[in-house]
């Protein structure tokens, strides 16, 4: 049995032996045809496995296990740790060998799943974001995804609830920003959270709640979403036979209640658990109340805390008020899986705190960011969570990081104007010509969606003044004053534009304008101050003394220059830049054949390559297509534009129009900005005539760019 030669090699040179086993060079006869982890199951001592149940009917072995291999797990542990750390720093292999290399890494990550390898586990748990960045680069398809295998390792043994939010997000996001495999992983991982003696149903509840959360994000699917929910619940029930049918019915009824009675009844019926008739329920009490958890505080308590923060005299005093409230809400989240109360309370309290105080206390800063990251993991679809993160970063003295967050937001939320305006302001403040171009582009996007956006006009006026484009400066400043006649910023900008132009009569015109403004709107400190400056200049001019208007300009912000040193944030910055590269036309010449990207990435690559394959969508199952209704429809429409005669185009256009009408009607109530965004972009596409395909491709790219995993710092 030549595998023992490999065992000897492992004792002598662990890392080399590990490398040989993974790449298939090791002499492991007769185990050549099994995966290395199955070989290891065969040859390592049974007590080195993480789980090793004695099975019903298992024959008592005639020969007891010898201890000849007792030292191998430790050698394997050392060798694997070294191998993984070395690989993370090594350059990737050439494209032709990447598939086999990714398979090796996937396999390597099976070992700590099956065996107690404490050193490897500790290494993998440390620097999570860096591991994920490396593994993400090796992910070729849903089923050759080392990142998935990494998460499996973490899921298998959990000493606390730290990773709970990841598991919840996997369940919700599977099929969108992650492959559908993550749904199963998320559920199994929730089941592996530590058990609680005073709440033994917690892990089961978390699984069900995660599925409810998933359903609530997919109600637009109609019946298939409900069927999926029932199917997944059936699996959860099968894995958890610790409740009898009657208790399950009551338990599920309680957790499904937010879906409404009809849907709850449908799901229970699909599970073969017909809801008990109300006459048979225990008198005076709803059985499901036993399983219902109440949130720790009412909304009024949160309002009270926010008021206390506003009235507080120090950061410490404010923190003392909100900390216990947030701790209680986080605890409720960990017990219930319901993030609603936690994110709402955090948003209100943290926003109030950050608006009042810079976050200088390291302890408060650290805890607050933990909570903000948690909120983003469980509710990344709400731009308010991102704006809070950005605000907190600025208040913590990280303006560059705040800017990256805004860039990420701009990509995730194409209809969000606030992040664009804020980002443009930061870019303008940097005084870099490149940044100014970006700012201009962002503000034009804002005006396309909201022509009367005051902040966009005022910032554009500022930019125009800088480049001495007086006509644009005056136009935008005047637009600002038209939108809000009492807007001091626009008034000052208008005066500045006049004054700096230095045409005959400009300085008196500027003074006259500002004088009228401050008379009409007293108390505008900036306008009054600038009026004094202009009057002073007028006086100097009369005295024949010269001065330069450039002296009036705000200095460039100096707090943005320090380079980022944290590798996790550097990875985030790189991903922000990479996003822009992917979108560039001609970013890839051909579609790679050894990869199976998720649907958004596949469409994005096709758009970048200008390859409008008729059958691209057919590579994806119906569930995958259902996740991206707008993108798939737009793709189909653009494909028709690309390939078909005018009659067919008109039919496709009508079909798209009908779908968009329904979508915008549905969005008008809850997401008016989305409705506006859809209408404007569709109108722009239709107005583009011969350029419709290019305009549509750009729109599709923007839409597809939304679907991406969370940034690296949120995985740290």
């Amino acid at each position, binding site marked *: 049995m030549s595998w023992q030669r490999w065992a000897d090699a492992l004792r002598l040179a662990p890392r080399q032996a590990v490398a040989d086993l993974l790449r298939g060079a090791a002499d492991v006869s*007769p185990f050549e045809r099994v995966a290395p982890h199955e070989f290891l199951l065969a040859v390592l001592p049974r007590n080195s496995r993480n789980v090793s149940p004695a099975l019903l009917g298992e024959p008592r*072995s005639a020969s007891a296990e010898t201890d000849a291999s007792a030292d191998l797990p430790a050698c394997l542990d050392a060798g694997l740790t070294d191998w993984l750390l070395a690989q993370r720093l090594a350059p990737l292999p050439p494209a032709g060998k990447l598939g086999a290399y990714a398979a090796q890494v996937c396999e390597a990550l099976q070992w700590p799943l099956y065996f107690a390898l404490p050193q490897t586990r500790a290494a993998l748990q440390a620097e999570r974001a860096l591991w994920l960045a490396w593994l993400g680069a090796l992910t070729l398809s849903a089923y050759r995804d080392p990142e998935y295998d990494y998460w499996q390792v973490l899921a298998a043994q959990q000493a606390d609830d730290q990773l709970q939010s990841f598991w919840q997000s996997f369940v919700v996001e599977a099929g969108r920003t992650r*492959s559908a495999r993550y749904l199963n992983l998320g559920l199994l991982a929730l089941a592996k959270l530590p058990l609680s003696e005073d709440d033994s149903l917690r892990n089961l509840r978390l699984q069900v709640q995660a599925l409810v959360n998933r359903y609530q994000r997919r109600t637009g699917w109609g019946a298939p979403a409900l069927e999926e929910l029932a199917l997944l619940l059936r699996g959860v029930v099968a894995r958890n036979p610790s409740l009898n049918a009657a208790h399950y019915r009551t338990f599920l009824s309680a957790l499904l209640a937010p879906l409404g009675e009809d849907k709850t009844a449908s799901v229970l019926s699909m599970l073969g658990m017909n809801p008990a008739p109300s006459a048979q329920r225990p008198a005076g009490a709803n059985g499901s109340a036993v399983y219902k958890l109440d949130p720790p505080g009412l909304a009024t308590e949160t309002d009270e805390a926010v008021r206390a923060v506003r009235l507080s005299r120090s950061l410490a005093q404010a923190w003392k008020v909100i900390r216990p409230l947030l701790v209680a809400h986080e605890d409720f989240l960990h017990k219930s899986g319901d993030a609603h109360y936690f994110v709402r309370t955090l948003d209100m309290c943290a926003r109030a705190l950050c608006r009042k105080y810079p976050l200088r206390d390291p302890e408060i800063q650290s805890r607050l960011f933990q909570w903000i990251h948690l909120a983003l993991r469980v509710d990344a679809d709400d731009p308010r969570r991102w704006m809070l993160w950005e605000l907190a970063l600025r208040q913590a003295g990280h303006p560059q990081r705040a800017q990256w967050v805004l860039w990420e937001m701009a990509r995730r939320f194409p209809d969000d104007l606030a992040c664009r305006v804020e980002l443009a302001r930061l870019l303008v403040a940097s005084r870099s010509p490149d940044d100014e171009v970006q700012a201009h582009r962002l503000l034009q996007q804002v005006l396309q969606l909201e022509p009367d956006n005051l902040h966009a006009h005022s910032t554009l006026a500022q930019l125009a003044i800088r480049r001495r484009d007086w006509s644009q400066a005056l136009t935008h400043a005047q637009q600002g004053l038209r939108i809000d006649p009492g807007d001091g910023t626009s008034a000052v900008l208008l005066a500045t534009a006049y004054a700096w132009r230095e045409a005959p009569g400009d300085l008196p015109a500027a003074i006259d304008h500002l004088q009228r403004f401050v008379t009409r709107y007293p108390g505008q400190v900036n306008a009054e101050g600038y009026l004094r400056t202009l009057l002073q200049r007028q006086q100097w001019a009369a005295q024949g003394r010269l001065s330069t208007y450039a002296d009036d300009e705000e200095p460039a912000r100096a707090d943005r220059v320090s380079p980022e040193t944290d590798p996790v944030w550097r990875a985030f910055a790189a991903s922000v830049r990479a996003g822009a590269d992917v979108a560039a036309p001609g970013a890839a010449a051909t579609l790679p054949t050894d990869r199976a990207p998720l649907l958004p990435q596949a469409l994005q690559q096709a758009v970048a390559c200008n390859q409008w394959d008729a059958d691209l969508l057919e590579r994806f199952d119906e569930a995958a297509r259902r996740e991206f209704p707008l993108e798939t429809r737009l793709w189909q429409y653009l494909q028709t534009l690309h390939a078909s005669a005018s009659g067919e185009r008109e039919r496709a256009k009508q079909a798209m129009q009908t779908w968009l009408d329904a979508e915008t009607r549905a969005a008008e109530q809850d997401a008016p900005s989305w409705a506006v965004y859809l209408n404007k972009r569709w109108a722009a596409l239709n107005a583009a005539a011969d350029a419709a395909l290019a305009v549509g491709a750009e729109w599709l790219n923007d839409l597809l760019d939304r679907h991406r995993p969370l940034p690296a710092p949120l995985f740290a």
Partner: protein
Amino acid sequence: MNLSPPLQPLASDAVASPAGAAIRCVAANFRWERAVSEARADEYHAYVGAVATHRDWKAEHKGYVDSFVHVPKDLPRSAECFMAVNGQAHLKDQLDNALLLRLESLGHLFNQPLASEIANIFWQRFFNYPKDLKKDKLSDSDEALRSEFVTQWNAQRTQARPMFATFLNDFGGDLAALIKSDWPHRLRDRLGVTHYPGTAGKPLPVALMCYTVDEVRQARLTAARKGAVAGFTRPTVLDAELSAAFIPAPLLPGGASYGYTLDLAGVGVPANFTPELLTFPIEYQPRHIKALGFISREHALQEDDAMLAARNRHVQGLQQLPGCADFGEVLA
């Protein structure tokens, strides 16, 4: 198989013999293989490149298998053995519907922390009740349990790798009778699965799987876009990792010749062989599991000498088939 210049010397018996019995056997397999087309061999050589040692050859071979045969389930191309480039090895797709058998190890499921609980619940319920496994319809809870077990098992099967299978007909054609016998060891030996069980003291839980030729055909049709032109093929030396337990079979004209497994319990020169074929991968269904059992006894070919002798007997048997007298060679 025609080998590239760097591989030719490595495949010669003179160079392979000093590298050990296992290398000697796999090198011989390359010399004897006739079912690999020129085009597929070219692809193989392009991947493997200029290797100088048997170790590097093994490693590059595994890389080839991982890239072109054990492909991820969702890759838009099938395992290469079902594609046109492997046409020389393809079997007739028009064979009558028949029952296929596979022996599956379940050991890893019980030791995988995220899957072990459902695997255990399933095992507890069905190990002693193989008749229930054969039922089309179980109670809701049992059906849910069986389905969930298979769902979790399929979730672990991340590759669309070709499935080694044989015919139930070749085991007497009576599944119930087979199940009543010591099927785990019988199949292990007849199918030449030398790595079951792992080592002494570690009984290996296994499942007897049974599915149909029609199900394979359907799976291939469903995956038609992946470039698979055949659902059945005979195994070649390129379709799995290098192993002494595999011996190529003579290539008969007309796409009618299967692979033949090495019988681990055989004692003389065999007159009959167990057919072996690769089927297009299918997702397992609960009904495919027919019995559960353990492989606890070691097979007879634990030592290199015994393996070499068994291979020699197998080759001698193959040479007695009509028109195959010049196939292979006895390795002294």
